């Protein structure tokens, strides 16, 4: 079989690229709608539209340094403990702030259900932060933006 001409290869590459882009757009749309659903659900539970949602795994929440930082997060955030409701209720008392259980998470068995992270709403897009400890330690500084402009709870 002879080699395909360059034009045919370019057209084939274009078709494959179009399919790859459609797959990417479909996944991005699905993720966006799930993150939006997370904010809708947290707004219903918290009674206000949160600026950010902090999702914490039980093992991360048990870490004393990390737990200490959670207590100081802005009241405009909502905290979700990816564990059972009774554990969320316990943590709510310990952290002295409303905490929801994993039933609020709209994701299937994916990384957004199984890891700790922060979702920040920036207008019509969402930004995920996974480096939580350094980020939480910086709250209240001129940067990062979230947490810098809003009043902190009295501790």
């Amino acid at each position, binding site marked *: 079989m002879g080699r395909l001409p*360059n*034009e045919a*290869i*370019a057209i*084939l*590459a*274009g078709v*494959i*690229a179009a*399919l*790859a*882009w459609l*797959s*990417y757009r*479909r*996944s*991005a749309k*699905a*993720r966006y709608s*799930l993150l939006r*659903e997370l904010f809708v659900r947290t707004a219903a539970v918290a009674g206000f539209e949160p600026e950010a949602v902090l999702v*914490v*795994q039980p*093992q*991360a929440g048990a870490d004393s340094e*990390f737990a200490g930082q959670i207590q100081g997060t802005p009241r405009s955030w909502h905290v979700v403990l990816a564990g059972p409701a009774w554990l969320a209720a316990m943590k709510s008392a310990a952290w002295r702030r409303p905490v929801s259980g994993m039933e609020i*998470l*709209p*994701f*299937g*068995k*994916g*990384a*957004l*259900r199984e*890891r*700790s*992270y922060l979702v*920040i709403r920036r207008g019509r897009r969402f*930004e*995920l*932060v*996974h*480096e*939580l*400890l*350094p*980020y939480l330690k*910086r709250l209240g500084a001129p*940067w*990062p933006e979230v947490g810098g402009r809003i009043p902190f709870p009295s501790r």
Partner: protein
Amino acid sequence: MNWEFEAAWLCDYALAVVFAASAGGKAQAMTDLRMEIRAYGPVPVRLEPAAAWTVLAMEWALAAAFAAGGTLEGVKEPAAIAVLLGMTGLSWRRRRDGGGRNRADGTGSCGCFGANHPLSRRPLLRNAVFIAVAAAGWIAERPAPSGTGFAAFALAVASAVWLLEARKMQKETGEWRAGDGQVTE
């Protein structure tokens, strides 16, 4: 078929995908990138934003150089090896100083391609493979690409980057696990 040409193109392709995916993933999560630079610790706080933009610009430049194929021969490969060695050193240092414990997810993966990216696993082994690929690409020689050949090559790079990103998002939402509903009640 000239196997040296084919191997050289494959090396360029692999490295173009790697650097484009890395830069694309980082560009989507600039906050995470700054925090990761903070966690690695070699840069003063006030220089973090500049460091983040420098890393990003460097990776986009390398991605473009490799995607262009046949250009900057003998320059882009050592540059890529230097960048990869630097990143490997930082990853190793962070792992030695506590590794994944700094990340709240507790995983040993890095955020080099953005969190949850398929290429983010096993950073040290992965970078060693990329360095070997860059070294092989440095040795092998290839002809300059034609106009249509160049277009096909760039589209193939973009396809791989989009598919990897799609895979990452499917992994995040749980969509990739067959049988799971996307939205749980």
